[in-house]
């Protein structure tokens, strides 16, 4: 087996394993910190797929931004000095059953579908291309996204602001 294959399986194992931790852990803090493994693993997978810029974005935004936000939220809404913070889950068995069926079907679909193949698989720097596309064909979505971010910013501020009356 090639080294690359081994590393791929290793990364896949880390990713899926920590994702499973996120889903199954009884401690919400463990869930949250396990997200780190998932995000980092996914970033590594992007590197494998030749998407260097996306990988960096993934680390920067997911790890540096979203994960920290989630951790903050967890710590602000729990009695943090208690180590054993429970993370209640209900209806595990039916959920597992449904999800199992769903996953089986998804994998089945993935295997059966004849996916289109690219002419050649390139590993080249993508940053410039992405930049060109953002300011070219995808200018409108790009601007819209900036608008969405602005709206989200304002929304977050408005929602989390303390009401003066109460």
């Amino acid at each position, binding site marked *: 087996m090639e080294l690359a294959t081994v590393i791929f399986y290793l990364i*896949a194992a880390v990713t899926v394993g920590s994702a499973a931790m996120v889903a199954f852990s009884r401690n919400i803090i463990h869930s949250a910190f396990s997200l780190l493994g998932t995000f980092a693993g996914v970033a590594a997978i992007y590197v494998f797929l030749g998407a260097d810029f*996306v990988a960096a974005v993934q680390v920067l*935004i997911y790890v540096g931004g979203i994960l920290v936000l989630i951790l903050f939220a967890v710590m602000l809404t729990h009695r943090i000095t208690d180590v054993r913070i429970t993370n209640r889950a209900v209806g595990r068995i039916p959920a597992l059953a449904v999800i199992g069926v769903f996953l089986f079907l998804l*994998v089945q679909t993935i295997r059966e579908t004849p996916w289109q193949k690219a*002419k050649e698989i390139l590993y080249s720097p993508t940053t410039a291309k992405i930049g060109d596309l953002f300011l070219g064909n995808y200018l409108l979505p790009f601007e819209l996204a900036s608008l969405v971010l602005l709206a989200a910013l304002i929304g977050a501020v408005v*929602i989390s602001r303390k009401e003066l009356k109460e």
Partner: protein
Amino acid sequence: MAIGLTHYLVIGAILFSLGLYSVLTRRNAISILMGVELILNGANINYVAFSHYSSGNVEGQIYAIFVIMLAAAEAAIGLAIILAFFQIFHTIDVEAAETLKE
């Protein structure tokens, strides 16, 4: 078996399912949010994998970046809502938010 598109798609599917499981079973709003992040990551893997193996250009990555961006916005808004929720109900159990039901 050489690593190919299918492998990545399967990882994406697994992440998606785990996220879905998290969303389905959790009663804790933050846990649900974490499940959603897993789902988005699963979808993103698919985007980038297709971009790499199927189309051969970077448009898929552009979509992935858009998704990441929106995920950031969603996390910010979601957590703001959760904090507001916590201030009102003093818990973040989503079952508490049933006042609209009556």
